C-alpha cells in the first residue's frame, strides 16, 4: 500500500465529449462510425458528477485535480468546461490514429495517459450517453492493476484508503480499497456545480497538455478502427414510427388490448 498524503493527492478525472442528447446523430458513410464533427457536443453528463466529486474531495482535503479526455480536437471544449468548473489542469489525448477505437483500445490509451500522470485516485462517470457500455473504467483499472470501485454513490478518502458505497440491485455495498485506486460514480453521488464566468476566465490560463499516440508509447496498430474487435458492417436509419393501433372500446376493449399485447409477446 502506498502512503498518500491527502494534501498532495492527485486526482485524475476522465471526461468524454458526447453528442448532445437531443441532437440527431448520424454515422459517417465511409466507415459507419459516429460522425462527431457535425453534431453539437457536450460533456457526458455522468462525467460532470465525476468532476464535481473530484472538486469536492479537493476542497475537503487539498491536492490537485487533472481532467483527462481522449477525443477529436473539439474535445478541448469539454476539457475547458471541467477547468471552468474548477479543475487545475487538462490532458487531451488526440490522434487521428485513435479514430474508431473500441472500448479495449480506448482503455489502453487512457491507461497510458493516467500512468504518465501518476494518479492517486482516478474517477470516471459510470457510463457515457453515447456508447453506454460502462466497461471502460473496469478495463482501465485492470490495465493499471488498480482496485476498481465502480458505481459509487458516495466516495470518501481517509489517509491511504478510499471507501465508497457501491450501488447494487438491492441497495449498496460499502467497499474499501487502498490508494491508488479507480472509482466510477453514478448520478446519485452529488449535484454538479455550474461553471461561473470567473471560472471561465480562469480556465483560459490553466495548462492543457496535448498527447498523441507516440507520446503515450502506443503503437498505431493497437488502437483505432483497424484494431477494433468488432466493426459495424452495415447500418440503416430507424424506420419512421408506424401509426399506433387504435382499439375502439365497445365493451370488448380490454380483451382486444390483451389479445394485442399477447400477440406482441408482452404478456
Amino acid at each position, binding site marked *: 500500500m502506498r502512503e498518500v498524503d491527502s494534501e498532495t493527492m492527485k486526482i485524475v478525472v476522465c471526461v468524454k465529449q458526447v453528442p448532445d442528447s*437531443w441532437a440527431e446523430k448520424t454515422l459517417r458513410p465511409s466507415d459507419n462510425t459516429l460522425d462527431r464533427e457535425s453534431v*453539437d457536443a457536450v460533456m457526458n453528463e455522468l462525467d460532470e458528477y465525476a468532476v464535481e466529486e473530484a472538486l469536492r474531495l479537493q476542497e475537503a482535503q487539498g491536492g490537485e485535480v487533472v481532467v483527462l479526455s481522449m477525443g477529436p480536437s473539439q474535445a478541448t*471544449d469539454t476539457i*475547458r*468546461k471541467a477547468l*471552468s468548473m474548477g479543475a487545475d489542469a487538462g490532458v487531451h489525448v488526440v490522434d487521428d490514429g485513435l479514430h474508431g477505437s473500441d472500448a479495449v483500445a480506448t482503455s489502453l490509451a487512457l491507461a497510458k495517459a493516467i500512468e504518465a500522470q501518476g494518479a492517486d485516485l482516478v474517477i470516471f462517470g459510470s457510463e457515457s450517453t453515447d456508447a453506454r457500455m460502462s466497461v471502460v473504467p473496469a478495463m482501465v483499472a485492470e490495465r493499471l492493476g488498480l482496485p476498481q470501485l465502480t458505481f459509487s454513490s458516495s466516495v470518501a478518502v481517509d489517509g491511504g484508503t478510499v471507501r465508497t458505497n457501491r450501488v447494487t440491485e438491492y441497495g449498496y455495498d460499502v467497499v474499501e480499497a487502498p490508494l491508488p485506486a479507480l472509482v466510477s460514480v453514478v448520478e446519485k453521488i452529488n449535484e454538479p456545480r*455550474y*461553471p*461561473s*464566468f*470567473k471560472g*471561465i*476566465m480562469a*480556465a*483560459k490560463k490553466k495548462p492543457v497538455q496535448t498527447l498523441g499516440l507516440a507520446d503515450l508509447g502506443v503503437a498505431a496498430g493497437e488502437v483505432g478502427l483497424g484494431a477494433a474487435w468488432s466493426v459495424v458492417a452495415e447500418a440503416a436509419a430507424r424506420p419512421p414510427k408506424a401509426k399506433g393501433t387504435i382499439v375502439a372500446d365497445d365493451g370488448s376493449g380490454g380483451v382486444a388490448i390483451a389479445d394485442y399485447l399477447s400477440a406482441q409477446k408482452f404478456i
Partner: protein
Amino acid sequence: MAAVIAPVDRILPTSEARDLLALAAELADRELATRAPAAEASGTFPREVFDLLGQAGLLALPYPEAVGGGGQPYEVYLQVLEELAARWLTVPLGISVHVLSCFPVIAWGSEEQQERWLPQMLGGTTIGAYCLSEPHCGSDAAALTTRAERDGGVYRVTGTKAWITHAGVADFYNLLVRTGGRGAQGITCLLAPSGTPGLSVAAPEQKMGMSASPTAQVLLDGAEVDAADRIGAEGDGFRIAMQALDAGRLGIAACAVGLARGALDAAVAYARERQAFGQPIVGFQGLQFMLADMDTRIHAARALLLDAARRKDAGLPFSIAAARAKLFATDMAMSVTTDAVQVLGGAGYTTDFPVERYMREAKVLQIVEGTNQIQRVVIGRALATG
C-alpha cells in the same frame, strides 16, 4: 411542452464569450425552461434563479472587472440575455432592469459611493429597481412630481412611483425625484436601500403576462434617504435617467429577439409533427413562408441590435441606434409570437403550449423603457432636426 431551443450560430469576439454563451444556454435549459410555466402560472418571483445566476456571474456582465463586473462588451452581454429570453422572459428582463439600476452609481457615482455600493450591487446577491414612472406620467417622465426636500443630512421624499419592476423584492431602489423647479432640470437621482423608513410597496399589479416578475407602486411617505446617497448633483437626474435608458433599451431589444426565437422554435417543432390533409403541416408552402418570414425578422432584429451594441462598445453615439433596435425588435416579437400562435392553430390558443404566453409577454416589450411611439419620437426628431 417546452420546445428544444436550437443553438444560434454566432460570431463572438473571444473564446470566453463562446464559453459564456454555452453556459447561458445550459443554465437556461436546465434552470429556466423547467421552472417558467409553473412560476408564471402561480405568479412566483424566481429569486433562487437570480441567486444562481448571480453566483455564475451573470448579473453584472457589462460592467468593468475592476469594480466587480464581468468586463464584457454589450455585444456579448446582450446575446446572453437573448439566450435566457428564449426560455423565460421574466429572468433576462429582470437582469436588464438590475443592470439599469446599477448604471447611475457606475457612470455618475463618486469614488466613495462606488466603493460603498458596487460590491453589493455587482456581487450577484442583490437586485435593483429603477423608479422613474409615476401614475400620471410615463412617457412624459420629465413631468414627475415625487418631491425630495433636503433636511440636514437627509432628503425626505414624498410621492408615488408606478409600474416598478422588482418592487418589493429589490434590495435597492433608484429614485428619480424632484428637488428643483419644473422640467427636466429639477430632477435628481437618489439611491435608497430596501427597508428605508417611509418607503413601502403597494400590492403588485395584476398583469396580462410576466406574472412572475412583480410590478408595483413604490410609495414614498417622507422616506428618509441619506444625502450621501444622492448620485450626481441636484438637477443631474434626468440626464442620468435618459443615459441609463439608452443602454436599457438594448436589453429590452435583446429580450425581444430571444422571446421571438423561443416562439419560432416552438412553432417549427409543432409544424413538423402536426399532420393535416395527410402530411405534416410544415410541408405546406403557405405555412413555410410564414415560418421563413418569422425567422428572417428575428435575424434582422438581432443584426440591428448587435450593430447598436457594437457602436456602444466602440464608444460611438448609439442612442438613435438603440431606439431603432428597441422599436424593431419588440414590434417583431409581437408579430412573431402572434404568428406562432397561428401556426399551432387551436392548440396555440391553449395553455398546453407556451406560445400564447409568449404572445402575452411580447406585448409588454412594446411598452416598457419608452413605448414604441416614444422610440419613433426619438428617431423622428433626429430626422426632423438633422
